[in-house]
């Protein structure tokens, strides 16, 4: 059961869409329901020992999980494919913007910012294609971003925040360090963001 679950999780993780406990039960665990937590625990141990990955529950109410990397980030070139890397680049930029602007931004503000980077919602991007779809659908589905409607707005507006996967895969401190590096400043330059990042550890 355990190895089947491990395989199941690895494959499900390919699209980076979070895994529901219900799916795990239905497809793999089935009749061993009672041993569920034990099986999951062992699967997590295997993932950590063999692959250096960790199974993390990002929604304790609805029992949704993701896989994250447990290993320290190595320096130097990674072997991953370009498309993934480029998306992560865009994502990091978006997450930084959201954090530095107080953890929540309006969609209009976000697109205004991306405009400066030659990324437009209405226009096909040479690298990202349909950017609007990437940001509002893919990143949201993968739980990197969270979007909520702003009440009483007409036409309806949305705001963006960090999603639970972002919270687990990176940290405010890391992101602040990124911003500081880009702007060649010390992270303490932004006092309130810095204290928030420190507190968040």
């Amino acid at each position: 059961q355990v190895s089947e679950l491990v395989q199941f999780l690895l494959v499900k993780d390919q699209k980076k869409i979070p895994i529901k406990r219900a799916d795990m039960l239905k497809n793999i665990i089935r009749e061993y329901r009672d041993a569920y937590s034990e099986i999951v625990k062992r699967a997590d141990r295997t993932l950590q020992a063999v692959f250096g990955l960790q199974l993390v529950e990002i929604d304790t109410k609805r029992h949704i999980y993701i896989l994250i990397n447990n290993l320290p980030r190595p320096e130097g070139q990674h072997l991953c494919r370009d498309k993934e890397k480029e998306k992560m680049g865009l994502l990091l930029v978006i997450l930084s913007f959201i954090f530095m602007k107080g953890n929540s931004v309006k969609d209009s503000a976000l697109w205004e910012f991306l405009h400066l980077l030659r990324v437009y919602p209405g226009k096909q991007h040479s690298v990202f294609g349909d950017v609007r779809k990437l940001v509002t659908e893919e990143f949201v589905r993968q739980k990197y971003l969270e979007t909520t409607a702003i009440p009483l707005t007409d036409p309806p507006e949305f705001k963006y925040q960090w999603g639970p996967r972002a919270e687990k895969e990176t940290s405010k401190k890391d992101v602040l360090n990124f911003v500081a590096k880009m702007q060649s400043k010390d992270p303490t330059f932004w006092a309130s963001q810095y204290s928030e990042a420190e507190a968040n550890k």
Partner: protein
Amino acid sequence: ENREAMLNSKSNRLTEALEEANRLFDGVCRAREAALDAQFLVIASNIGKEKANELHSEMSAFDSTAFAEDLLTFMGINRTEVEETDDSEDVPGAFLPSDAWRTMGEEASKYFRRAPTFHYMMGSFKSEPPAPKQRIERQKKAGRGKAEQAMPAQLKKMEESHQEATEKEVERILRILQTHFENDPNTPISFFDFVMDPNSFARTVENVFHVSFLIRDGLAKIKLDEDELPIIEPIKPSEGGEEDSRAGVRNQVVISLDQREWK
């Protein structure tokens, strides 16, 4: 309306609006007006909340424009060259290289603890991510499901090969017939001689079966000779076409042959 104006932290528009609403409320004596006032209050409080949010981030003066500029610099933008692009909305006069986002991505991967996506080394059947998942799911349909799935697949295969074999056989027999006739064009072949296999009844039946295809398709014909015994001969292509279209006669002959007779 005027939402943006109210949000501006430097403006007191929101306060002014609230004060005016207060004043107006004194004159209210109808429920509808009171409802409008309540609605206004909700909107005002939302705006107030937004303003408060904006206030917080302004405290640490994050300049997003400067940040964007720094990002572009990092991605390798070339501000000296003027490039002819079709980006009409673009800020003209700066060239962003094609690997700009790859550069950004390289840097970004250092900040994420992202699990590398899992792929089978040897590839899956059609090298598409859904395929491995299906494989797993099929395994879990313990035994029974799998057996059922295997059977239709097998049967189908047999059927296919059977059909092919038949066609091949028919062709083979036609060729034999034709060769025979080439060698000896004026002697028709006794039908029975043609189909009989002295060693196997089953084979004989098969031969009859295959010959029937030839007849059906108009590639051979069976006639009765002087002795009322059937003979078979191939139809020359030219002949066949004309005859068929004109006469369109099809005769059915039932020949019975059982094992005893055959012997």
